[in-house]
């Protein structure tokens, strides 16, 4: 199951809000705990840049809080991650 961590600062709050808004799709938001939100979801997780109104310079650093998973595609507008067996 892919899981990401999002540092609790305003620039990355749209990522958290996007996941919260999609709880019915299986996105689970935990926290913030010690400065980080955690987002996890069974199967595939995706984020849309325009939906979140993220500037490009933030978009390409979206997983700076930590990525427990693997990026399966990373475009200008949509990023998708999946679970991985790769070591952290």
């Amino acid at each position, binding site marked *: 199951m892919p*899981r*990401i*961590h999002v*540092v*609790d*600062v*305003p*620039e990355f709050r749209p990522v958290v809000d996007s996941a919260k808004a999609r709880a019915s799709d299986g996105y689970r938001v*935990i*926290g913030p*705990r*010690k*400065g*980080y939100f*955690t987002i*996890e979801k069974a199967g595939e997780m995706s984020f849309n840049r325009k939906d979140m109104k993220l*500037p490009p*310079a*933030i978009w390409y*650093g979206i*997983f*700076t*809080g*930590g*990525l*427990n998973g*693997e*990026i399966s595609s990373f475009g200008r507008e949509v990023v998708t991650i999946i679970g*991985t067996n*790769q*070591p*952290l």
Partner: protein
Amino acid sequence: MPHDALHEEARSDSSYMSEDKRGYRTREVDISMLKPASDDGVQLRLKGVDHSARPTWKLRETVTFYRDVLGLPLIHTISARGWGHPGHPDFLHFFFDAGNGATIAFFYYIGTDRPEKYMPEDSYFYSASHTAWSVDTAEELAQWKETLEGRGLTVSKFTKHEGLESIYFRDPNGYPLEVTRRLRDVEVIDAEDAALTIQAAIEIEDAAFAAGEKMRDIDTVWRRKAKLVEARVGDL
């Protein structure tokens, strides 16, 4: 070599000194031999930038650009016959006021040609060395962009980064310049997060170098960061 010996060597004629005996050749220094600040307990303090300096081979253009186009006052010029070292060219060293006590300075080495390796490049590596000046408000940043464009300069779009919004342009030497404003104060979590990101990256770099490889990508760093963050926050 014991820790203390490095500095003794630096004062002598060792290979740790550059030929002019005024600085380390950092490529030859084993950083692990230096003492961390925690050893002596002395907290050194800085109060921001006094000046940055770069060479120029375009005297008139540089003065015209900074003083007359940007409007930064020329506040000091040193003119000298070298630094007293054989072979050192005569030079001008001049300073423009960039506000809040900071200046941007240039060396003009008289009678020299710009070496090929100092030619400006369109590359990320080259642009990494740049000067970023600060303004306080969005209105001031917008005024800089509109005014400089009105004076004929090509200025980038507004770019929002983590914590900063910036515009970019170049001077007549090809040097990259940035005007930026802070979007928010830096918080404790920013520093804690910075430490975790750098720890993750250094761990990945160490492992890569030990295997005779380079770091592969940022994804690898992000995965190690997840491990560090999960250790910090505890069980989910």
